[in-house]
């Protein structure tokens, strides 16, 4: 019964994510059109659009990763249907509150709502508390979900087993930890850490808001907390996607299951640690931040990407190289997604180098690299899972049509959209500008090109999503 419930919930998660994804892409295209001068939004409206685009995208790909991990985890342990449903309800409430506060209340402090901007109210006065309470609602729903999944794992595996420590020394330990379990646990723990930071952050912000200025926060401390939360959640959601890939890539390809080895165990344990320190790179240009932390930021940014990316890429490459495998849309999406993720990672490592950040910080280079590993990385991981799930568990099976057309559109649109960001970043065009001062001669043209390519990307997404969407709707409507 419960397993069926989780399956149905997963279908609902997928439907919600896909609807919000399409809407958010449209908001993204509108932003690019406005920056290119084809559309003229009031700046406040543009920034409200930017805020809701950013927070929705982060939110949906996080829950997409969580829903996928939860579903696969059922293969190993019993997970809680109630926690999953609770998170679903809280997410829906939270998202509605976010959309109301930005699109109706005109709240536009950016998805990172960097203190003290949310309190310099230039929108409906109720929109600030509504936005912050929406985050609190999401935070509670997700905390419960994360804790319940961690508990489920710890009921079956001991602490050392769940982190695969027995693999450090022993080549063939008695209890094997599947890579999926290891990576899920590492990601869940990271998510837990950043959700706790979010709670502290919200408490501090509420304290100032409700004390009417009697309590005043420290801007540097809040900035550290904000990015510990924001950076970490954006990273961990990728790892959730990777956990699914370690499980499904060999399976879909018709190859033997992947097994944890000592170096995989060490790599992921190191990642857990370093990823929590990498957020310091968001504060490189705050010269008052202690220098030691800046250096830690650069080293941790390198070290966080090295083991997890190195191991994953290498594993996927050797798994595929000269090996006859069953290619399908799902593992092709995983494969392309990993390439997109690594290429975005190169852009990130360049920017995470302090002396380069001096020139690239808050230029369009930043959206360039994070859209690379999201729009062409993590999104494809999740779409691969969605596709696999919807085909595997629906009664409507049919041959997959138009695959190569869909993929070419996706690649063409995605690469063009990203290229416009990278080039503009190298030309020092600032990020988060509703329109560009005339001195930035190429910025408008690049923005328009970005909008055109993003539309091609949207068409590809439409083609992918419609069949997945139909199958999932069917699954929800028909008791199976």
């Amino acid at each position, binding site marked *: 019964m419960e397993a069926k419930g989780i399956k149905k919930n997963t279908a609902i998660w997928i439907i919600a994510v896909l609807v919000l994804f399409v809407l958010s892409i449209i908001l993204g295209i509108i932003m690019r059109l406005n920056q290119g001068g084809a559309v003229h939004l009031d700046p406040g409206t543009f920034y409200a659009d930017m805020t809701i685009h950013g927070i929705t995208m982060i939110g949906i790909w996080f829950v997409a990763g969580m829903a996928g991990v939860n579903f696969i985890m059922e293969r190993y342990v019993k997970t809680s249907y109630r926690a999953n449903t609770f998170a679903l309800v809280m997410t829906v409430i939270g998202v509605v509150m976010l959309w109301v506060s930005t699109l109706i209340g005109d709240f536009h*402090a950016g998805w990172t709502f960097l203190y003290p901007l949310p309190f310099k109210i230039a929108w409906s006065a109720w929109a600030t508390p509504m936005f912050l309470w929406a985050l609190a609602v999401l935070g509670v729903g997700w905390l419960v979900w994360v804790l319940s999944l961690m508990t489920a794992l710890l009921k079956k595996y001991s602490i050392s087993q769940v982190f695969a420590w027995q693999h450090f020394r022993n080549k063939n330990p008695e209890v094997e930890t599947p890579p999926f379990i290891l990576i899920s646990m590492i990601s869940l723990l990271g998510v837990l850490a950043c959700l706790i930071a979010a709670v502290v952050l919200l408490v501090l912000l509420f304290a100032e808001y409700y004390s009417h200025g009697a309590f005043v926060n420290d801007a540097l401390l809040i900035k550290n907390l904000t990015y510990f939360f924001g950076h970490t959640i954006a990273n961990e959601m990728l790892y959730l996607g990777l956990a699914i890939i370690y499980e499904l890539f060999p399976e879909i390809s018709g190859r033997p299951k992947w097994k944890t080895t000592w170096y995989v165990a060490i790599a992921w344990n190191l990642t857990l640690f370093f990823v929590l320190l990498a957020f310091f790179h968001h504060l490189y240009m705050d*010269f008052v931040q202690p220098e030691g932390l800046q250096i830690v930021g*650069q080293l941790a940014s*390198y070290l966080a990407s090295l083991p997890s990316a190195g191991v994953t890429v290498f594993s996927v490459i050797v798994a*595929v190289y000269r090996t006859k495998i069953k290619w399908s849309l799902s593992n092709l999406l995983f494969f392309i997604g990993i390439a997109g993720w690594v290429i975005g990672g*190169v852009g990130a490592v360049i920017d995470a180098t302090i002396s380069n950040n001096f*020139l690239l910080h808050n230029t369009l280079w930043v959206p360039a690299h994070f859209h690379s590993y999201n729009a062409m990385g993590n999104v494809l991981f999740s779409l691969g899972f969605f596709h696999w799930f919807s085909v595997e568990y629906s009664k409507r099976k049919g041959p997959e049509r138009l695959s190569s057309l869909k993929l070419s559109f996706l690649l063409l649109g995605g690469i063009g959209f990203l290229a416009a960001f990278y080039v503009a970043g*190298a030309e*020092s065009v600032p990020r988060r500008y509703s329109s560009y001062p005339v001195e930035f001669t190429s910025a408008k043209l690049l923005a328009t090109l970005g909008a055109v390519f993003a539309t091609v990307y949207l068409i590809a997404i439409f083609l992918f999503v419609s069949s997945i969407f139909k199958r999932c709707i069917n699954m929800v409507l028909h008791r199976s």
Partner: protein
Amino acid sequence: MQYALLLLFLVLAAVIALVFIIVYLSSKKSDDELKGMANPLQKRFWFLLILFVCLGIFALITIPRSPYYLFAKEQPAKVVHVAAGQFFFTMSYKAINPDKPEGEMTIELPANQLVEFRVTSLDVNHGFAIYSPSKQIVAQTQAMPGYVNLLRWKFEEPGTYTVHCLEYCGMAHQVMQTTFTVK
């Protein structure tokens, strides 16, 4: 410098893309079911080691060039105080009173001599990014309320420099700018 970084990125991205394409095609061509590893998660220590060494070298070269260490031992020839606010920059050779921020009409700075900017904010976080006459960022720091960031720089090229705000600060963020000249 920015274009060099773009080039570096494009080369690496192309190499990665090529590797993925070659690997994919090799799989498509393969007709032997038995080839391929039973467990691809086997140790590939040397691969990580190479990556590790490359990044280590990159860190060793770049960290000493971080802005915190630039001209740290020299005395600035000129000091400029900067107070950022929604949505303006006030710049002055004298300290700025936060309650009554007043700045100079024009700021002129000497070429090839050390200038120190003392940057703070009167309200929310802002950015202080200096664009060369050819519209490339040459240096930047943040303007944070309650803190003063010290940015040191030597301008080589004379001309008009523009300062843009690079931290999102609200409705008119995109028009927040000022200029100074280097002679």
